């Protein structure tokens, strides 16, 4: 009896399995294709410079760290300087965004005041404002205070809640928190500041984590703003330093360029590995890149 019944389900099952295997094979090939350039860069960074462009394969004949050693000192300051500069700017930006955006978001989401809707509309609109329309007057402004070649032009905007996207993200998040919590704190005699600090801020952790991750990635990768403000080698951030290596590129420089490019991506890759869950959730909810 069972013999007459089983053929149909197993056939379906087998077909389904075959289809799924086909799908996975296709996807894996596509993944390999997508990731190939990255893997090629990693491998090339360890190849002797003259083999990088003559041999496109992934298995190096000789391994060497020369590219890293030479690249580290390719400019008239070692890359440790640029990494420290980038770290300083990135950490400063994170602190600035967390501080200013959370204050702003709390006021916009929870406090009653006359201009609230207008302020929120302005915040939304400024997400769409192209940066290029502001950058020239900003540059003139900062250069008049003699702040070119310092990090203030990069950091001051972060402390003034100008990354409107994060304000928006946090407002949306605070709105999902039960209002009863704030109200209970108010009844207990805590003012808006204590309520913010002891009740709302701790509950905002997921939004703060998302903000931290994206501020890190964006600031670490940022090129346009540092390119404009940082013209002396000793204040370069890593992307600006890479750019000036490109300018002086020779054929033997490819290995150094790859080695330093790879190092410049490492912090982001490490961040990606640890914060993947938050990252994916962050993009899914906000559309951040």
């Amino acid at each position, binding site marked *: 009896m069972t013999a007459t019944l089983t053929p149909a389900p197993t056939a379906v099952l087998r077909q389904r399995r075959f289809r799924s295997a086909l799908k996975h094979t296709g996807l894996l090939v596509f993944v390999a294709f997508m990731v190939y350039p990255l893997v090629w860069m990693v491998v090339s960074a360890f190849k002797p410079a003259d083999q990088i462009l003559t041999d496109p394969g992934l298995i190096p004949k000789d391994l060497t760290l020369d590219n890293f050693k030479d690249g580290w000192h390719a400019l008239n300051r070692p890359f440790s300087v640029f990494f420290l500069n980038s770290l300083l700017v990135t950490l400063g930006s994170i602190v600035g965004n967390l501080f200013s955006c959370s204050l702003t978001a709390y006021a916009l989401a929870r406090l009653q005041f006359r201009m609230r809707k207008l302020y929120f509309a302005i915040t939304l609109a400024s997400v769409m404002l192209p940066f290029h329309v502001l950058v020239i007057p900003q540059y003139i402004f900062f250069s008049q205070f003699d702040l070119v070649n310092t990090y203030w032009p990069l950091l001051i905007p972060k402390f003034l809640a100008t990354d409107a996207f994060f304000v928006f993200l946090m407002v949306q998040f605070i709105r999902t928190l039960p209002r009863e919590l704030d109200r209970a704190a108010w009844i207990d005699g805590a003012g808006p500041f204590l309520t913010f600090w002891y009740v709302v801020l701790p509950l905002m952790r997921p939004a703060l984590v998302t903000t931290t991750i994206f501020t890190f990635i964006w600031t670490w990768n940022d090129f346009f703003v540092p390119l404009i403000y940082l013209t002396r080698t000793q204040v370069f951030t890593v992307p600006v330093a890479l750019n000036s290596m490109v300018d002086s590129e020779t054929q033997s420089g490819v290995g150094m360029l790859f080695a330093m490019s790879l190092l410049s991506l490492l912090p982001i890759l490490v961040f990606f590995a640890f914060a993947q869950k938050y*990252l994916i959730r962050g993009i899914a909810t906000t559309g951040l890149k």
Partner: protein
Amino acid sequence: MLTDQERPVEQPPVEAPATKRPAFHLNRQGRAAHVFLIPWQLGFLLITAVPLFASLYLAFTDYDILNPPEWSGLENFRRMVDDDQFWASVKVTLVYVVVSVPLQLGFALLLALILDRGLSGLAFYRSAFYLPSLLGTSVAIAILWREIFGDAGLINKGLALIGIDGESWLQNPKTALATLIVLNVWTFGSPMVIFLAGLRQIPDELYEAAKVDGAGVWRQFAHVTVPLLTPIIFFNLILQTIGAFQTFTQAHIISGGTGGPANSTLFYTLYVYQQGFVAFDMGYASALAWVLMAVIGVVTALHFLASKYWVFYGDN
């Protein structure tokens, strides 16, 4: 989850029952709000509003940063009409936006659909496809792209294996822009993740109902998936279009800041940068920036107008 993006536009903020509170309470909130908003207000004034109007003013002046700006009326805008580089940059940017954004979103949607239906290993594929978006706008990846599409680069090595003798993709004005389009398509992961989240919001009951009504896979796709996904498609379209208009890093690195060969990678923002920060012609650069803003504004507005005809919001 995904509705978060649409909510602020569509729903009024939840009002607290403030009316029953004594007036001093409201005053206290108002005063507190102003303290909370000190950074934002300063930023809005100094970093956004004043620069915005300053650049509007500068757009009508001749200004080289060393001498005070000189009013020149519409001269900057007249100059654009005869400026070949300006038109070249407009063309490059428009081609890039029109070609790379639909391609990128097409890939994103296709992969999201493949990954959506109960496939094992979703987390792995999602991360693998997302990784390029995370790195794609960095200087490092632009450098990598230079070497991939260069004279002796990876692509030509691959072509040589099958007997094709490729030329440098970056030195040829006909193909240089294409390499940057490929780079943008390569970063389809972030819209894909948004599509995946959107697909998950579509209730299973709708598919069940469609099946009961006799709809096959294709009709389910055309009549359930696509209509319900249109708000997300629209959101991604707006976001990626605005982003593509402002592409700078990749073009700067690929061409060494020149926009060459033959202006074929002279992205609009790169031209603004050259005028403003290389030639220090800040009046002209401001005029260019305002034209960019106007174009982005008009394109976004057109998208919103057109969205009435194809974006489907469940509630109306």
